């Protein structure tokens, strides 16, 4: 009887050790999972940020080009920065958003 109890106790102690080692392993896995989730989320956020920034820059650039044209300078690639003599079809085509 005593022998049986000793064996059970050893078995339980072994299971406990196994559980303890598994716990630390799961803890590492959970940390890894959190890190991976965070890493996976970053590119999407970064892309959104880059797109938003590009749109902002594009709008600012468009506004700047429009201002430059309205101030009397070509914005078409052929004569960029040269003084306008009347409106230019190619500048207006470039500035227009059909």
């Amino acid at each position, binding site marked *: 009887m005593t022998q049986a109890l000793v064996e059970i106790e050893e078995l339980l102690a072994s299971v406990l050790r196994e559980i303890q080692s598994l716990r630390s392993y799961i803890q590492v896995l959970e940390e890894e999972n959190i890190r991976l989730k965070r890493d996976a989320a970053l590119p999407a956020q970064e892309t959104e940020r880059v797109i938003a920034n590009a749109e902002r820059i594009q709008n600012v650039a468009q506004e700047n080009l429009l201002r430059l044209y309205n101030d009397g300078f070509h914005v*078409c*690639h*052929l*004569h960029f920065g040269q003084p306008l003599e*009347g*409106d*230019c*079809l*190619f500048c*207006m*085509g*470039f500035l*227009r958003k*059909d």
Partner: protein
Amino acid sequence: MKFFCTKNDLLTGVNTVQKAVSSKSTQPILQGILITAENQKLTFAATDLEIGILCDTPANILTEGKMVVPARLFSEIVRKLPDTQLSIELRDYTLLIEYDQSNINLKGYDPEEFPLFPELADAESFTMPTALLKTMIKQTVFACSSEGSRPVFTGTLMQVESGTVRLIGTDTHRLAYRIAEIPENPELHFYGIIPAKTMSEIYRLLKDEDEIINIRFNKNQVEFEFGSVRLLSRLIDGQFPNYKQAIPQMCETKTYLSVRSFLEAVERASLMAKDNHVGNIVRLVLKEDAMNIAQTSEMGKIQEQIPIRLDGKELGISFNAKFILDVLKILDTDEILMELSGPFSAAVIRPLEDPNYLYLLLPVRTA
């Protein structure tokens, strides 16, 4: 060199090549016409190194040879000659022209000094009906710029691709575009800016009896051959702007109107612009069924009204009258469609019966 010919033979040759004679060159030889007598024909040639024209006329050649004559004087002499058989002989760089009991001695230049006409290396070619090319030139060349400070706009863009040929002329304030099919050459590709002077010369020289024109080209030059004429021209260096981007794809107002009524009304309105220091600007006010055309100057005021059909928004817009008249004069159609997008955006004029042509013009901003 000795040959017999008529006044008309000489006149044909001189008239054909005279526009290629240089008027400003410091090289005297370029102010001359090279006359070559061989194979029972006379070949007249002139060049200013930008454009070169050769023309063959028949003649009775006794002795072959060649000579360069001063173009202006020779041309005036030929025009004044009587309509009789001419005997022409070269003696020591002097041309002896004999007719009836009279004669003229004309000193010339050494033909060896005359520049050779280059043969087009690696050239490709296509043909098209002369009548079609004449129409295309007429519909586009007038929109080119005459300002030498912007060379690419002093020529028409010829674009050959996918079995079509396009001509586009623009001075950046207006643009004329014409497309035609050349179905036998679907693989051919060409993109070159041809000087407006060259195009105008081809238009002048093309005759109705010349049915087909052969166009050869390489990267730097283009050659047109029709009837007994060969015309060579250099291409203008530089990149033509993206003209497709300039053509609006949408509009707010569409108006259909008679070419003749519009032309006559704008012509009458233009009369008032004489001595007008602000230029010849006409004001158009488009309403549902009529267009008012007005011009005011110190001389007075004119108000015209023509019937139109209008789809979309009513609006008022001002244009340089010349830009309108130029296009209305070259259209062979009764009715046009004018597409507008507000008083400051480019207008598009299209002939109703011809989808292959369009004309783009910018309005004038008025106070």
